[in-house]
């Protein structure tokens, strides 16, 4: 079963995705499980009966009624539910770890988390930037980006990727083509495979797969065409030999740290913006699958990214109505050496 035998003090609740979605749910679950097992704490994974705010609230309550002390909630879908529950006296003794979002009020505006709520958001555009940069530096000039759904996190990866590729191209005095697409799904399918194969056949050399299980289809396409993939969120090199690197955000570490903090009495609520500076995002540490790009090159660019000397346009800088469009004015103006083919 999906949990321990003893009373589940640590709870993970997902939205419609499962705990091996190859994305934050999976990372968070690994953290919960590892911590629970190592420290002999009960832990449990819950999936709501219905995927709406009422359903999320009900499941959070259920977790509480079953004895949860720390509840991990990955994904924006819980924003409204948390906005409400954090004001509820009954939940004030429970620690919440929110991944990728912060609580929202009924109007959909972000609100400050209470002291028992830790809201982690990542600067995904940083690892995205690093991935694009590394790929172009390594010699690739025809790139692809496939995002699952145009969520802020996904868009951030994509925007960063484009800018990283652009800056590398500029430095190398080259131009780079990027095909850009949101698959509309986080699941694998023959359709996605066909799309990816089409790109690879049309010359695309590497695709940044940015959306949970769609990587299954992109890996398959890359393997057939002998092309490359950039993984996302966690280090995916073991999942396919086509993966040259992964743009990571360390969900697992954060979750583990915060569970620990909760038990150690060091839990601190609030919004926490996690970034390269603290080592919470970056590329996977293994550079053996690059041809030219070396650890030293990485360290150099990483430093610039983390100290903020490179300014990266992110989702927040772009009009929300763009819906993830990479061709908005302020992004386009920085993409001097990249041609983006956006297939919307």
């Amino acid at each position, binding site marked *: 079963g999906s949990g321990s035998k003893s009373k589940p003090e640590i709870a993970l609740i997902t939205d419609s995705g499962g705990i*091996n979605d190859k994305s934050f749910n999976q990372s968070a679950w690994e953290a919960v499980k590892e911590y629970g097992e190592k420290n002999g704490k009960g832990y449990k994974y819950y999936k709501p009966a219905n995927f709406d705010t009422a359903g999320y609230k009900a499941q959070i309550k259920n977790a509480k009624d079953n004895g949860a002390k720390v509840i991990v909630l990955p994904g924006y879908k819980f924003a409204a539910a948390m906005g409400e529950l954090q004001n509820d006296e009954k939940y004030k003794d429970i620690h919440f770890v929110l991944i990728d979002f912060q609580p929202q009020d009924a109007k959909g505006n972000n609100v400050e988390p209470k002291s028992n709520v830790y809201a982690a958001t990542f600067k995904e555009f940083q690892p995205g930037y690093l991935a694009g940069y590394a790929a172009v530096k390594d010699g690739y000039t025809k790139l692809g980006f496939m995002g699952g759904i145009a969520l802020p996190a996904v868009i951030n990866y994509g925007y960063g990727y484009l800018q990283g590729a652009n800056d590398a191209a500029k430095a190398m005095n080259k131009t780079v083509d990027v095909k850009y697409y949101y698959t509309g799904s986080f699941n694998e399918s023959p359709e996605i495979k066909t799309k990816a194969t089409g790109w690879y056949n049309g010359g695309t050399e590497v695709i940044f797969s940015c959306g949970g299980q769609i990587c299954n289809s992109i890996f398959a396409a890359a*393997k057939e065409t002998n092309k490359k993939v950039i993984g996302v969120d966690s280090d995916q090199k073991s999942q396919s030999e086509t993966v040259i690197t992964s743009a990571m955000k360390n969900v697992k570490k954060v979750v583990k740290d915060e569970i620990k903090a909760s038990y150690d009495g060091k839990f601190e609520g609030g919004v926490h913006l996690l970034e390269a500076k603290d080592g919470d995002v970056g590329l996977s540490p293994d550079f053996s699958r690059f041809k030219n790009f070396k650890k030293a090159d990485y360290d150099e660019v990483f430093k610039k990214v983390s100290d903020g000397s490179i300014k990266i346009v992110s989702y927040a800088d772009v009009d929300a109505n763009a819906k993830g469009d990479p061709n908005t004015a302020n992004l386009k103006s920085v993409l001097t050496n990249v041609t983006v083919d956006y297939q919307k």
Partner: protein
Amino acid sequence: MSIVYFLFNQTLLFAIPLMIVALGAMFSERGGVVNLALEGIMVIGAFSGIFFMNWAQTNQVLSGMPLLFASMAIAALAGFLFSMLHAFAAINLAADQTISGTALNILGAGLAIFIAKTVQDGAQNISFTNEFRIESIPGLGSIPVLGDLLFKNCYITTFLGFLLLAFSWYLLMKTKFGLHLRSCGENPQAADAAGISVYKTRYAGVALSGILAGVGGLIYIIPISTEFTGTVAGYGFLALAVMIFGNYSPLRIGGAAFFFGFTKTISFAYSSIPFIAKLSLPDTFYKLIPYVATLILLAFTSKNSAAPRADGIPYDKSRR
């Protein structure tokens, strides 16, 4: 030219599993049993095939082609066993075939995930390594045109698909069994009076559909993924549509599967086809193509449906 190879290759990706499952459905329906359970059978087939594959790969029991064939055998067996539930309900108990088919779809999905989660400590997905793609078949791969079309970057299952198409046509149209099966689907009273066991023959039809749908589920998954997540994304229902579209006859089912596969390919590969890409219409427009095209074609071709007359009607000796 390479674009042609590419399109053909991708068309096969959709067409082959759809065709195999649709051919299965054809056997069931030509024998008089409506099989809505294809989706569930595909899931069960894929699940058991991949489950076995995962086990064999982790324990290094088998690999390469032998593993593929062993997995297919497992998928076929599982599909067969599962379809027998439908056969029993439809044939022995004169059940409403729509209901029992729907039941198996629900049951199939539930069982696959339930078992996966239970044995994998909560994890739903079962991963596998795809070691079955053939870069180029020695000799055949170097034939001009044809070699590129068929014998490079291919799966043995593609040929299996073509083989099954030929076999299905032969079995249904040219053999004694085919004649018996068709008579049971058209007029079971006549078959019964001719000394044919309607029950046994219908069982055979459903069994074939179970075997083919089970295999179809497995070979749907292999080329597109590296793990099985517990669903075949509605392809069972699409296969049913292909079967009806193909008017219950093997060769036309082959045609329908390829038509559907081709339009599907276009709708996702349009950006690789220069003159279509230039139109730069929204993605949704292309995605609609296969479904809208199928509907339009159906509107022109459905006047003379060849649905077997006794399709879906439980055989009851005493009803005339």
